[in-house]
């Protein structure tokens, strides 16, 4: 974990309202792992006040990429950040996906901007020699980003691309057809999707890791602002920013 000013290399819109921002951040790039995030100060004064957390989407040499939707002021500012701009960034933050371990086929499941960590995860899985299957859910065809991902199946709410319905339904169907060999699920996306996925993983008894979101004030574990309810153990809550963002689906209550 470090804090520094890093140069914006480029920002461009790669899909409907989805922007790709590239940062020159050698120190962070050298240590970041899939599932970790950056906490970015979008401006040097108090509006927005807090940093904005973004998963690391992709790494290329000294460059780190994030992708994001413009949803409010912070992302609006980032989307129009001029190349050369120096952003105050803290990272890498959070734990990471459990890439090592006893499984053979990795099943990646992402909804909406939940694709964000998948390209980096894909890269790590490949070097770990895991077989990869990717399931992406999006509102419609215009919202699909599939770069740097493998064996991609798509579900859209409106059926404008791939399966019509949720990505979890798509996966459920796929699992019915043919089981994977010693699979493990890695997921990121909206809470309702993760909730449904956790249920599915339980049913079919496949280990499942979820990357969670939470409003965050600090991102580094000092504000206690990002609780998620956890099962088993004395504590009722864990901190998403520090003990997560990746949790075993069996150990969290969504």
């Amino acid at each position, binding site marked *: *974990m*470090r*804090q520094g000013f890093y140069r914006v290399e480029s920002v461009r819109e790669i899909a409907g309202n989805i922007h790709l921002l590239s940062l020159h951040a050698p120190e962070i790039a050298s240590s970041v792992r899939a599932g970790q995030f950056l906490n970015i*100060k979008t401006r040097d004064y*108090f*509006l*927005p*006040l*807090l*940093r904005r957390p973004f998963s690391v989407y992709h790494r290329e040499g000294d460059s780190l990429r994030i992708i994001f939707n413009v949803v409010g002021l912070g992302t609006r500012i980032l989307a129009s950040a001029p190349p050369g701009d120096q952003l*105050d960034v*803290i990272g890498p933050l959070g734990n990471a996906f459990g890439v090592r371990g006893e499984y053979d086929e990795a099943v990646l499941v992402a909804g909406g901007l939940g694709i964000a960590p998948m390209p980096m995860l894909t890269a790590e899985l490949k070097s770990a020699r895991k077989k990869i299957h990717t399931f992406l859910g999006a509102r419609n065809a215009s919202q699909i980003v599939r770069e740097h991902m493998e064996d991609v199946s798509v579900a859209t709410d409106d059926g404008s691309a791939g399966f019509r319905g949720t990505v979890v339904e798509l996966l459920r169907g796929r699992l019915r057809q043919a089981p994977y060999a010693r699979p493990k699920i890695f997921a990121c996306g909206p809470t309702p999707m993760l909730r449904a996925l956790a249920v599915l993983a339980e049913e079919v008894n496949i280990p499942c890791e979820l990357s969670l979101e*939470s*409003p*965050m*004030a*600090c*991102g*580094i*574990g*000092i*504000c*206690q*602002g*990002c*609780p*998620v*309810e956890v099962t088993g153990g*004395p*504590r*009722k*809550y864990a901190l998403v920013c520090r003990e997560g963002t990746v949790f075993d689906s069996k150990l969290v209550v969504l």
Partner: protein
Amino acid sequence: MAELGVRVGPLELKNPVLVASGTFGYGNDCPELSDVNLIGGIVTKSLSMNPRDGNPPDRIVETAGGMLNSIGLANIGVHDFIANKLPELRRFDTAIVANIAASSVDEYCGVLSLLEEQGGIHGYEINVSCPNVKEGGLSFGTNPSMTAEITRRLRSLTKKCLIIKLTPNVAHVSEFARAVADEGADGVSLINTVVGMAIDHRKRTPILSTVTGGLSGPAIKPIALAKVYEAAQAVKIPIMGIGGIMTTEDAVEFLLAGATAVQIGTANFIDPSASMKIARGLGEYCDSNNIPRVTDLVGALKVRTDISLIHSWL
């Protein structure tokens, strides 16, 4: 090089900058990003007798120039603190102020007594913005006699620095400052967060699980300055100024208003080394303005006296 040391009763601080309770964990949570040896002191997260889970999500929401929180005083409890945090804190070259929260006067006393037996704690800050279970949950801190009683009981238990942290959610904070000064408190710190609320108009729900929360950050700085000034006019004991301090100039403003020291809260979330930068900044500010001692700034505000009552007309 200007003299930056200040005193709050028996407590000596090498400089007047501390990190505020609940905004820096237990003090040793992010060593990679900040060096607490550079600041005057650490105020710990509020400690209660037993561990507290805290409130359900959402606990945080950003507002214009500020943020609301409803952490619910989630903390590991005083026993765990003593066993697992204090030993590390002892190693730091900075003052350790234990902040105590409780739901009964006896609990305040119990927690302080446990800490009193330990070495390495330089003072106590008492968070009275807690629900008094006996009184159906009304906050101790909005009742002067309750606040006074807590002070009296705790004063009898310790000779160390005893600071009462006042809530801004009262009509006249000076009344409370006087009450605790009369009971022998070494100082007061203010302000705690201002009660506020945020609403999700789409879902038609409050954003915080507890409906209301505490407002902090730059948005409340003017409120905090007014409260600190009011308290400084009312009591002689040292004041720790808190509320929206983001820069060295903000800190100077609090000193001018009458604070002997300042605490940095929300700023830590945005920049974990904010307090260290402000501590250094104060030294530079004094040097470049030929101020020999930082204490020369304390209460140095020049106020016109030719304007009477009208100031209460807004």
